[in-house]
């Protein structure tokens, strides 16, 4: 079978040629594709492209080689060898199934194959195709290699650290950052180190920044938006600074020199305020406790909590008020209490020995607890409300429930009455030595004192001194009211002005002042529970009420205009009738005393003065007096005009309303300015105005730092739409909306109007 072997060899040669052609044509293209993948893709893509390409080329070659099979061989032999007689397929036929003629032909064919030189069945090299492939491949390769490099993130990253090789840096980068946070020791918050530059730290924390900047600038600092500045110190490659923080702030790292730091971010240090401790009193469970029968001790217990810790020792402040009436004495003492429990929540308990305090019937013990936290430097101290233990007087049972409203009657003026008597007696003693004029003058001076005193007591009775009721009146005469704009004292001013003597003497104000002075003197005397509110409140300025520009809706004016804020009449109503009578009798005596003193007859005045003192003593012994409360007092109707039908002096009145004041306009102005769609719109003035406003109103804003940060971001990047949107959002809570106004109604279009007109014409009325 040498013929068959030869045939197989020829076929193999042809197949090898085909494989070679595929490889020669395909490999350059594969190389080009792989290089392109390496250039533009990741390594994985490169490897994948290579593998896939190689597999593809191999598969193609194998396929093309397989195409050369026996049939191809037969056809090719038949085609190129005429001497095969178109019967070369007999060479591969199964010899057993052939007839003799066919066998003969096979023998002839084999002979001819053996005789003739071996035919070249290999395909010729397709030179043009191969050259074309090579050209395409080399062209692609050149294109790929010469293509400008894309910004490759990995490459970028790998390049940046190698600074030495970089000829000229365009920016400074923060390559390392560390923030050591050392909270104050008393907080017991552990120290920590973070890798970011934003932190939330307890008040008083020491922060230490350690930064590494590449390339290193000449100097660098941490610059806070509120103006603080921390210079960074260089230590080899590290830059560091340390500072304690009491105030939150926004800062950025600012290197010196021309190179900018990138990314130039704003960082934020938030400060957690140390809260003052809180006291929760568990015993007693109410502010006023009445002493139980036979009670010897008073159990006190409270709990104090704080965010970091409460001092071990708390103070118990004990005030005992002993005696009644004028003769109350106070004793204060302070006792340390030692607490138990965890530092952040301590409990304190104490049993107060009432006998040791010498408590007797009618006495009060007032206790207050005072705790301090452990803040370093200046501890915050907090005092609890007062808790009272009262040993009630037998008759004082009815007082329960009114404790907050009443105080003991201890007016300072009583001493002054005594003083007047003393003065008058002294004057009488000196009388022989004095000239008549001087004597009368000094007597008159005492008389003035007596008068002031009487006025004070008159107020106690709620009566406007000299007897005739001069209550404020409703404005009834419009003519006067209209004219009031030009005059200093208009009707309403008169109405509101509760001047006590209506005789209109010029020294009214002077007298008032003197009265205040007297009251002030009296206050200075050591008698603590004065009806002080009365004495001082009396001095309120009535000028405001007289202001003609008082507009509608200005709350403070309404009361002054129509009401009588002087609350003494109400105090007077709370005096029981008996006390009232006594007080009135005292006033009468004072009146007589004053009359005589001012006439220069102190000797005649003295008995009245003594009587007055007597009555006052009675009042003092008698009872308690109630503190005044502010209330609305309707001005009475002028009965003299009522139902007379007279309309003199009445006229129409103007009543202009002033619109309510809206809130500050800066946030709204900026909000609107930032809304402008057009980028070129200039909102910088509004931004500056708002930043100014924010600086002044930091406490009114919930998170001022966020606003400052947003403003700063916008100032640095005016084109940043997101920054604008963010700032606008933050402004929203600061806007104060006006009351709802009606939406505009749009006119109907032509058809609609014609319809409405037609409707009207169709319904004759």
């Amino acid at each position, binding site marked *: 079978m040498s013929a068959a072997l030869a045939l197989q060899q020829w076929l193999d040669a042809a197949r090898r040629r085909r494989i070679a052609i595929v490889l020669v044509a395909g490999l350059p293209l594969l190389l080009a594709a792989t290089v392109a993948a390496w250039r533009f893709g990741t390594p994985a893509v490169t490897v994948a492209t290579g593998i896939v390409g190689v597999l593809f080329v191999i598969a193609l070659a194998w396929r093309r080689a397989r195409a050369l099979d026996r049939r191809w061989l037969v056809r090719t032999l038949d085609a190129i060898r005429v001497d095969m007689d178109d019967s070369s397929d007999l060479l591969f036929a199964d010899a057993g199934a052939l007839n003799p003629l066919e066998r003969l032909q096979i023998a002839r064919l084999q002979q001819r194959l053996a005789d003739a030189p071996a035919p070249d069945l290999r395909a010729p090299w397709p030179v043009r195709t191969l050259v074309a492939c090579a050209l395409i491949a080399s062209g692609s390769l050149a294109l790929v290699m010469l293509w400008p490099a894309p910004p490759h993130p990995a490459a970028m990253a790998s390049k940046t650290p190698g600074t030495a090789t970089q000829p000229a840096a365009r920016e400074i980068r923060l390559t390392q950052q560390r923030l050591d946070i050392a909270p104050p020791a008393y907080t017991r918050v552990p120290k920590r180190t973070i890798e970011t530059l934003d932190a939330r730290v307890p008040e008083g924390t020491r922060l230490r920044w350690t930064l590494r900047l590449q390339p290193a600038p000449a100097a660098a600092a941490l610059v806070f938006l509120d103006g603080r500045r921390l210079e960074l110190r260089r230590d080899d490659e590290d830059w560091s600074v340390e500072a304690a923080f009491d105030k939150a702030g926004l800062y950025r790292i600012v290197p010196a020199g021309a190179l900018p730091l990138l990314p130039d971010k704003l960082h934020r240090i938030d400060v957690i305020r140390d809260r003052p401790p809180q006291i929760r009193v568990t015993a007693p469970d109410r502010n006023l406790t009445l002493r139980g029968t036979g009670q010897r001790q008073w159990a006190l217990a409270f709990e104090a909590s704080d965010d970091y810790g409460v001092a071990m020792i708390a103070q118990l402040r004990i005030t005992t008020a002993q005696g009644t009436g004028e003769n109350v004495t106070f004793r204060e003492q302070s006792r340390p209490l030692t607490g138990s429990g965890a530092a952040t929540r301590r409990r304190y308990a104490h049993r107060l020995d009432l006998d040791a305090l010498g408590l007797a019937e009618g006495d009060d013990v007032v206790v207050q607890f005072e705790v301090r936290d452990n803040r370093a430097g200046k501890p915050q101290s907090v005092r609890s409300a007062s808790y009272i233990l009262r040993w009630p007087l037998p008759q004082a049972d009815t007082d329960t429930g009114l404790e907050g409203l009443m105080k003991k009657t201890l007016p300072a003026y009583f001493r002054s009455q005594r003083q007047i008597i003393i003065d008058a007696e002294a004057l009488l003693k000196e009388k022989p030595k004095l000239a008549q004029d001087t004597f009368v003058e000094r007597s008159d001076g005492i008389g003035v004192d007596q008068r002031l005193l009487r006025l004070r007591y008159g107020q106690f009775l709620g009566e406007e001194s000299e007897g005739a009721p001069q209550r404020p009146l409703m404005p009834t005469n*419009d003519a006067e009211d209209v004219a009031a704009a030009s005059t200093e004292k208009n009707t309403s001013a008169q109405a509101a002005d509760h001047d006590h003597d209506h005789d209109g003497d010029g020294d009214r104000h002077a007298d008032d002042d003197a009265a205040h002075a007297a009251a002030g003197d009296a206050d200075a005397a050591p008698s603590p529970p004065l009806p002080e509110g009365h004495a001082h409140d009396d001095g309120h300025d009535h000028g405001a009420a007289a202001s003609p520009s008082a507009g509608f*809706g200005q709350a403070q004016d309404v009361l002054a205009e129509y009401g009588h804020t002087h609350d003494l009449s109400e105090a007077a109503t709370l005096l029981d009738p008996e006390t009232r009578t006594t007080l009135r009798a005292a006033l009468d005596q004072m009146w007589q005393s004053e009359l005589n003193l001012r006439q220069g007859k102190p000797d005649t005045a003295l008995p009245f003065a003594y009587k007055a003192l007597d009555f006052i003593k009675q009042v003092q012994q008698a009872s308690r007096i109630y503190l005044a409360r502010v209330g609305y007092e309707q001005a009475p109707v002028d009965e003299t005009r009522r139902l007379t039908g007279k*309309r003199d002096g*009445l*006229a*129409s*009145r*103007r*009543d*202009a*309303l*002033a*619109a*309510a004041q809206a809130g500050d306009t800066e946030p*709204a102005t900026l*909000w*609107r300015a930032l*809304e402008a*769609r*057009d980028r070129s719109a200039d909102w910088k003035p509004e931004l500056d105005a708002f930043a100014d406003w924010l600086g002044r109103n930091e406490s009114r804003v919930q998170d001022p730092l966020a606003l400052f940060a947003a403003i700063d971001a916008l100032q640095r990047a005016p084109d940043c739409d997101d920054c604008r949107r963010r700032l*606008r*959002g*933050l*402004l*929203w*809570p600061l*806007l*104060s*909306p*006006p*009351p*709802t*106004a*009606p*939406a*505009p*109604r*749009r*006119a*109907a*279009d*032509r*058809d609609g*109007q014609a319809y*409405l*007109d037609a*409707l*009207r014409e169709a319904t004759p*009325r």
Partner: protein
Amino acid sequence: MTPERIVAALLALAVLVASVRWLLAMTRGATATRPRARRVVALLSLQAACAVLLYFTLLPPARLVDAGTMVVLTARADRVATTRRGEHVVALPEAGAAPGATRMPDLATALRRHPGTTRLRILGDGLTARDRDAVRGLALELTPPALPRGIVELWSPDRMQVGAVAGVRGRVVGVATGSAELLDPAGRRVDRRRLDKDGRFALFGEARSAGPFALRVRIRDSGGAVVEQASVPIHADAAVERRVLVLAGAPSPELKYLRRWATDAGLSLHTQIALGGGLRVGDPPIAFDPTTLKQFDLVVIDERAWQSLGAAQFDALRAAVRDGLGVLVRITGPLSAQGRARLRALGLTLASARVADNVRLDAPRPGIAPSDERSGEDTDDAAAIPGLTRRALRIDAIDGSPLLRDASGETLAIWRAEGRGRIAAWLLADSFRLVLAGHGERHARLWSDAAATLARTRGAPEPVLEGDALQGQRTVVCRIAAGSTVEAPDGARTPLLVDPGRGRAACAGFWPTVAGWHRVRSGDVAWPFHVAARDALPGVRARQSHEATAALASTSIATPGTATTPGPRWPWFLAWLAASALLWWLERARYGR
């Protein structure tokens, strides 16, 4: 002239010409060689038959066929039942991966490719606006998947007045017990409500300043996890200047608070309160004549002042109303016969009614203040609002509309159009109690609604949008002036061409390419409208698509069974071939010679 007719005419002409030519040639020849009549007839008829058969080969007659059903995959089609074997399945661009389906750019293309289609089975969310027109005349069946979890309905006013409270309402599916929150532009929570059993919610937020802003609705499930967040864009309009004349027969607290509101809300107010005996309090007196009334937009008058108007004054008022003035008659006391007659002359009839004189208004308002977030969930507002009083009267007006209703729906005020103006009668006596009870906002809304309805019109009609404006979808703006342009947020301006086919509606189509606040500008008047982003509110879009497609399904006439389609050509071709062959044979045969 249809192609069919042209072909038929050409064929007929060819047959005619050939026949005539052949007959002429035959008659010219010798008589002996003339064929017999039967041959002539056979040849001519075969020739005609060939032409007819050729015609039908080219244009086979239409045939009634079984209606083809096409399955169309739209967005989220993979969530519903798969297709059956043997169906035409096409996938529109919204559909996700759809193995086995033919990709089509739109439905019209798909229908053109499959002419026999008479039924459409649509799987998924339904057809987008692009494809809805193509359905015309086809039977349609929609198999939608369940709506996606989250917000599927969201309604909010797109325009409102500064200081007004915007109600944002919506519906959520897939969240059994959860809550809806409203966040203001600063991200603070201003309202929070529990979802009701249908998943509905209503939240209220306030417009604090003029200009566009966006509230955000956040849905949380019972565990507190955020299910969905959606932006609610609103444009707040600044108050326009209004002139209001208040006439009253006596001072009252109602007047005081009405005037306080009007002044604070920026209305320009002129008040005249009679004190009796010719005395007045308020602003300087004005002449009550048409010239003066022309300067006012609204007159608020109480029944005492109403009755004391002189005949000439009343005529002036009536003329002014017909000319556009709004009048609100506050009936707070007994009304004389003359007063009633005057109201009747303006179309409002008063009749006494047996009704309770205490009323309660509804009071939707933000549930929680922004400052205290912990408290106040779902506060019971209605309980907090104070009871008010009304006159026990009934107002009848044939063409009247309610101006104010109480919480139970009882009418407290009615208005009607009189000429170009409007007149209303108002029975609520003491709305000021709202302010005293701390509901100043409700009081302001009460009166601003009334004033908005009644006051004289201002400005030309504004454009309106037909439907929602959605990025990448055709939007129709109507009632626009010629020469209007749309200004996109990025500053691009697009002129609007008014569609003459829509007549006086003056509509124009517009394809927004960017989301955000657009403005229709005509001259120096700008009218804002918002274009929603393409991917905003997927649940709402899915629901809208379901509904629009279901509406198409309900209007489409189901024509089951048959459709016409061109019949097969081959029988005609064979017949033509046979005829031609016969003709050819006959030409050569000796038959009939």
